[in-house]
């Protein structure tokens, strides 16, 4: 069972993502509402995955992903947004993250597909 941390300022999305991922066999071990608390939570909880919203109120998701990569063994970061990939262009091509999934397509299988095993 993979553990996951959800970092998003929208409580409705966090609740729904928690439901969807739990259904797909993920253990949601924490939630954070912004980049700073997300980094703290990740260090404290050491999740396997972090579901990270790009449009956070304090720090952009790309930046948070970079911080997570610097401190300790990096979790697999999955970026998400209610905008689709076209809004971010090449910034999604590579970085300190596993990949990008638009919010409506978040699911356990989508995340596992990014890792490369079902």
């Amino acid at each position, binding site marked *: 069972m993979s553990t996951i941390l959800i970092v998003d300022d929208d409580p409705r999305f966090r609740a729904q993502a928690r439901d*969807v991922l739990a*259904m797909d066999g993920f253990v949601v071990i924490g939630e954070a509402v912004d980049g700073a608390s997300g980094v703290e939570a990740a260090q404290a909880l050491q999740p396997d995955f972090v579901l990270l919203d790009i449009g956070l109120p304090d720090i952009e998701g790309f930046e948070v992903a970079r911080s997570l990569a610097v401190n300790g063994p990096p979790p697999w970061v999955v970026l998400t947004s209610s905008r689709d990939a076209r*809004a*971010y262009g090449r910034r999604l091509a590579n970085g300190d993250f596993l990949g990008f999934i638009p919010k409506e397509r978040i699911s356990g299988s989508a995340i596992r597909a990014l890792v490369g095993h079902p």
Partner: protein
Amino acid sequence: MLSILSTRHSPATFTWIRVLLVITAGALGLGMLVENVQHRQLDPVAVLEALVGWSFVACGVFIWARRRDNRLGPLMTIVGIVWMLGQTMPLVADPIMFTAGSWLSDLWAAWFALFLLSFPSGRLTSRTDLAIVGVYVFVTVPLEFLWLLFWVPGNGLNALAIAPDVNAAHVIDTVQRAVIAFGGVLLVIALGRRWLRSSGPVRRQMAPVLAGAITILLQSAAWILVPFGIAIDPLHDLMLVAQIAIPIGVLIVILRARMARSGIADLVVELGQTPTPARLRDALANALGDPSLQVAYWAPSQDRFVDAAGEPMLLPEDGTSQAVTMLERGGVPEAAIIHDAILLEDPGLIASVASAMRLAVENDRLTSEVEAQLQEVRASRARIVEAGDLERRRVERDLHDGAQQRLVSLSLELRVARNALGDRGDPAVRRSLDRAADEALAALSELRDLALGIHPLILTESGLGEAIESLADRTSVDVSVDVGPERYSPAVEGAAYFVISEALANVTKYAKATKATVRVRDLADRVTIEVSDDGIGGADPQVGSGLRGLADRLAVLDGTISVVSPVGGGTTISAQIPTVQPTTPSVPALYAVPISDDTMEA
């Protein structure tokens, strides 16, 4: 006597008066010469004496005809006539004529003094001057009359000699000489003081008057010396020559003032080139022949006059050696020319200069107004475009924060419901849930397309290059993108993006092209954009509002766009956008300082 100068008389009357005076002067002069020839040999002195009269009358009449508002002409004519009467009448062998002539013989000196002191207006301006003329009149009229009562001339023709007394006559004569010499000294001092107080051009104008002062000195010296038996003939001759020259000198001064008007043409030319305040002042000073001239500008905001540098300026008061010619518009002062008061003697000249400058001021004011309005229009157009861009961003954000989030939420919720149902429940409900989830995804996709069209977030987040790459990915034809990573101002990036996006939209819609190229070059001061395709060409830039809208948008940034689209030869759209925004156009320097206040309010 000066009542003949009244303007009540018609110009024709004056013309006749002048003709009569010229004839009289001619006759009197000839009379002097004829008498001279009859009595003695023709004496050069007599010729000089006749020339003095002719010179005064000729020049006086000429000035009188040209400058009717100036008493100088008539005054000079009177000096000449009285001079000649005083010279000729005593020559007539008739007691009445001889006596009247003797009485008149020195009266010219009083008119001469009046003429010198009233130069250049022909009017006395101070009580001192009046008093000096009074001294001359006192000596030449009542004292002369008193002297005639006692005087015994050699020819015995004195009709007034009721108490002939050589000694009494001699005493009176001595008093006369002393007083008139005293008056002469006062006159020379008065003229000298006036000369010292004057500025350059006025000093030059006063040259003939100074010559007059010298004759007065010579005359005074002669009057003092003669009773002592000292007669200096060269002194007398010199005085006569000076007296001939004086009217000619005055005439030249007056003519030069008229010629100065040709300087108006130069002034108008200079003003037409919107000179700097310094050059304007020089041009005015040249046209008016007054190096001391200054220009003051009315500053409505400060409610006072200022100089070209904006420093407050005080205008000279009335009665000083400087005068002010005001330039007004609708009763409100705009500028003031501060010049030598002597220039008021040629009202035509100063009026011409003032109206030339008034035109220039008006022209400049209109130019500044149009310039200010143009700048305002440009600024407001830029603000409108900027406001439009901000509004697009706001709408995109609102879509993202609102409908987009809700559709995301709806999609996830439907998926949760569908998963919860699993294989259980009514198959129709399961299908319905699947369709609802697909609909939600489709709605979300359309909404994202809409948001992207309204404002591409990637443009502001990642710049033109990424935005164009993203745009190219979404275009159905194959687009090769050659755009650097440079960032520009949001306005420039926005305009460039919309040019390229509109061009690529046209490629897709009309060009029937297989591939297109987008090239953006970053030059030192501008960015050039080129979008070309291998389509059918023949695009008409006049058709459709898309390109017109792009041209308008680029114009805000002083950018340009052009389309080359030969039939069958593909289409190339080229645009240039300056990346260094031009500084605000300079307001013409001439009246910028003081007048900009109210033009900006207008």
